[in-house]
Each structure stands twice: as structure tokens, then as C-alpha cells.
């Protein structure tokens, strides 16, 4: 499934949020991808891949999950974005 998520925390997708996403994504069996509007795609289970998106505050990303637990995975990752990664 696919949903749009927006980065709301002030510092953007830096190490800590990327770590949170990768950690949470790693707990699901589904394949989880985040796509930047500029076309670059990140494997949400790889922190390096997420960091390479270089997404600052305000960026909208497309979250795509595919697999047996894709709905739970999408909900969990969306939750992180909405909570601003507990940062601000």
C-alpha cells in the first residue's frame, strides 16, 4: 500500500529519526520504501539509505509497503512521522 508522509520535525530526517524508522521498519516482514519527490528511493530498513534521502523539514515522501504485514508497517511508520519522531 502507499501513503504520503510529511517530515514535520525541525531538523528533518537526520540520524536519530532515520534510526527510529530503520529500527521500526526492521521489525516488519514487508518490504518498506520511502520515495522522495526528486525520485530517489530509500530502503526504510537501511539507515544509510534513509540518510541519503537528505530530506529536510517540510519534505513530503511516499511510503510504500508490500508484504504480509504491509498495513501494520505503514501505520507504524506513519505514526513516527506524525509524532515528529518525538523531537520537537
Amino acid at each position, binding site marked *: 500500500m502507499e501513503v504520503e508522509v510529511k517530515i514535520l520535525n525541525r531538523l528533518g530526517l537526520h540520524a536519530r529519526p532515520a534510526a527510529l524508522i530503520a529500527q521500526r521498519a526492521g521489525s516488519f516482514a514487508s518490504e518498506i520504501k520511502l520515495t522522495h519527490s526528486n525520485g530517489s528511493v530509500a530502503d526504510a530498513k537501511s539507515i544509510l539509505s534513509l*540518510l541519503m534521502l537528505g530530506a529536510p523539514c517540510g519534505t513530503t515522501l511516499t511510503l510504500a509497503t508490500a508484504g504480509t504485514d504491509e498495513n501494520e508497517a505503514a501505520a507504524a511508520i506513519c505514526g513516527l512521522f506524525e509524532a515528529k519522531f518525538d523531537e520537537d
Partner: protein
Amino acid sequence: MNNQPETVCQGIAASSGYAIGRVCFVRQNGNFYLEPVDSSITPEQISVEIEAFHTALDAARNGILKLQEELRNKAEAHDVGIFDAQLLITDDQLLTREVEQMIANELKPADYAFFKVVEKFVAAIAVMPDNYIKERTADIRDVAARVLHHLQDNSSGNIEYDDQRIILAHDLTPSDTAALDRRRVLGFAVETGSATSHTAILARSMQLPAVLGIPGDFLEKVKDNDMLILDGYSGKLILHPTRETEAEYRRKMEATLIFFHKLAEEKRLSAETRDGFVLQLSGNIENVDDIDTVHEYGGCGIGLFRSEYMFLNSSGLPSEEEQLDIYCSMLSKMKNEPVVVRTLDIGGDKLDQALQRYAEPNPFLGLRGVRFCLKERPDIFRTQLRALLRAGTYGNLRVMLPMVSCVEEILEVKALISELQEELYHEHIEHALHLPIGAMIETPAAALLAAPLAKVVDFFSIGTNDLVQYTLAADRTNERVNYLDMPTHPAVLTLIANTIAVARRHNIWVSVCGQIAGDPRFTPLLVGLGVHELSMPPALIGPVRRVIRNLQMADAELAAIEVLECETPARALDISMQMLRSAAPEIADLVAPASDN
């Protein structure tokens, strides 16, 4: 190991002495992050390398977990979270996959493959527009350094860190150098710098043999634990020396040691020419303990105390009381012999982020020395001058200002000193009523302004290292222009001669405290030019004293006149060298062995 061919490399002799021993490669910032050697493996080794890679990842992960555990009690939960990110990097599937592929498909060893993949990520992240994300590359490199450390530790066997080593590095900052443990370090060689960079200066004062300006391709050939001979007299490095070469160097080492012992026995003799002219020989030091070595070699004063190392080595700024303590203990150790304290000289290649608010594109031409003290941090300067004024009542203290380029700078400092004296008077704190103030002559401007400067200061001290770099417009930390590091360049000699002549005419003291002061090749020349004092790393006092005791002032003066008429640096050096050879051939052999030329 033993059948590798002997390889010789020529660098720049930065600090004299020999070192024979095994190599310890120091990576940037003291960690182990440096591009590993690019080599190939056989298909049979693939599984071994992949296995080694995973073992190293596990070891790094355990290391981070342990650190995190230690921090958990001390730090904010938020900060500990940084390590979560680091842990994820060790678990990162994308990274692991790419490294495994590179090992298997390109037949690269694990350390090299890992380094290349990490650098690819770092390069991609470093171009991001967001600075905050960009800074994460430091985290990635931090993790990578841990993993590499484990990988390379395994590949090079067990390294005994408690034995003595020759340190090799691409670069050592002056503070890295100062932090080297003299008992465990035999000497060091680095790629950057020249004979007059601060790293070299420190090496000399620490009596550590050092060679700078090593070509990068030579460094790549060297591995941890390799056998190396470092010749700090000629600037040579010999990798995998044959048994004969090693034996020859051991003989040389022994002979030099005996010679220096003999020189040390002369320490009570005065530095007097055969026709009765006496020079003051003193030591350049950066901490109080160095005074013992000055005495050991028979120095009669401190010609340069580099006070910036008090600042660079402490976590906070040293307070007035702390500084007072340091100055007083120096003065009491020196009895009534003169102690020249150079005020804080920050700038150039001695950068300090805590003290300097701005990074300058061209720090050697920036706000350094007295400029920095007057313009940027008058608060630090006031504290230092107050401490010096108070210490002035405890002994023969003199204050020297670095990087002077105008008369006004001296006047401004003198006004500040009067103000502080007034302040101390009202606070009923004992202080010196007259503190001799000297100008360092290290810019061409100061040398040309010697006459007006002589009217407002009590002494000159010629800092030849900077004087050469500024006169010849050649950055002394840039190895590409270090061929211009020519103290006998006619332009430089004219400035030095002018400064000394003016000082003598105005009856003020003039010393030389740059590198040439401790280099016997220049001793006949400096004596002939009429300098009052030579200040140098303590260990060099012996050879210089021996040269002076064998010189005739009358001859030296004539030679100096001849030198000033030379049109090339080489010719000028030649004349001084000839005098050295006829006065003290044993010293001439030491600084320029006949076989090397």
C-alpha cells in the same frame, strides 16, 4: 616479511636523531580511519574475508553497546540515542550487501571493500544541502573507524602497543604531537609540513627524531609493524632495512650518543669565541618541566617560552592565578637567569577552535599573534599580562610580543600594561613596575621598521621561521613550496642583518629564536652578524656551544660581510658551512655527513 626489499625515501629532516624500530600507523584524529591498501584476494579467500567482515561488524557493535551502557548512567537519554544510529549502521543490510558483493565480485579484501562502500555513502550524504544531515557523516565514519580497527587488527596480527614505535601519519597537528608519549615513541614521520612548521618545532623540543614531507606513495607502502629506520639528520626513511643497513645505523646511533655525552660534559663552559666574545645560549620551551633539560645542556636562560601551549593543552582558559603559578615556578627554577615569555601566539598552523571565533581562509596572514590578542580576545590578553606583571617581581622576566607589524601595536600593548599596573596598584597586588617588552621580528615590516621599533622596546627576538615564510611568500606548512624555506636567501639575510645592526646601534638586546639558531650550519653566520643571544631547543645547545668556542669573532665578522654580498642562498650557506667545517669538523659531519652530499 624479511624478504621485502629495502626501500629508501627522502623527506625533510625536521628533528635530529635516529630511530630504529617498528611502525605504528596513526590514523586521522587518533582513530584508525585511513584508506586501506588496495590489493586483491583469490576466489578461495572470499568466504574468509566475508567472515572477517562480519566478525569485525560484531566486534564494533559490541564496542558501541558497551560504550552506550557506560554512557547510559551519565548522559541524557537523547545523547545515548546517537549510538542507536551507530548500531544501526553496523546492522545496515544495504551496507553489508554491498560490501559482500565487492569482496565476492571484485575480489577485494574486506577492509578495502568496507572502506570504499562507506566512502560512497559518505560522499552521497556529504553533498546534501542540509548541514545537519551532512554532519552525520561523522557518525558513519566513527562507526567505520571501529569496524576497520577490528579488521586491521586481525590482519596484522597482535600489535604490542606497549613497546616502542615509530609513528607514521599523514598529518599530526601540533597538539597531536604534544600528546605523543615520549617513552613509547621513538620518532615520527608525516606527509605534511616543513622543517619550520610547528609540528617540527615541537618534535625538536621534545627531542624526538622526525622527518616531514614524506611522499604519499611511500606512506602507502608502509604497514603497521614494518621495520623502519628514521634518520632525522638527513631526512631519510628506510623501510625493511637489510641487516647491514640496520647494523650501520646502530653504529651511527651509538657514536652520536657518545658524542652528545661528550658535548654535555662541556655544559659548564661559556659560549665564548676564541677571541673572547660571549654569547648567551638559551632554550626554547613550552612547559615548565623542559627547564630541567635546559639546565642539563647548560643553557643560561629561557629565550622563548611558548605560552600558547598552556592554552592549547588545557580544557578551559588558564586563569590569572594558574598562569602566575606557572610563570613563578619557571622563574624560581631559573634563579636569576632571564626568562622570555612570548604572549599567546594563536593563528597560522596553531589553530584552536575554542579560542578563535572565525575560521580564516588564510590564517598565516590573518589575525594571529599580538593582532589576535589586541583585536579579538583582549580579555585573554589582559589576564595574561596581569599574570606576567605579578610574576615580574619573582625573577628576571621579559615579555615578548609575537607577529608585530606596526609600531602602534607596541604602543597599544604598553598603554594596556600601564592601565593594568594602575589596576593592580589599586587592588594592592604586588607587581613589576618595569616589565621589559620585546618585539619579535618575524614580519618583513618589523625588520624594516627596526629603527622606530628599537625606540619603544627593550629587546628584539628574530623569529626566522616566520620571517622566511613572510619574506619569500611561501607557506611553511605547504610541502609544495618548502624548497623556498631558505634562511640564507639574500632578502632574508638583509632583513636579519638590518635588525641586528639597528639593535646594536640603539643598544638593545637582540636574539635569534628561530630554527636557524639551533642549526650549527648557521652559527658562524649569526655570530658574525653580531647577535647577542641564540635560543634553541635545549638539546642543540651543546653542538652550537662547541662551534662558538672554536670560532674567531674576527673571522666570523669577515665571513658575514662576504655572506651579505652573496646573490644566492646556496652560496651564502656555503660560506657559513665552510667556516663551520674549519672550526668544528666533527659538528659539520653531524649536520651534513660527507657521504650525503
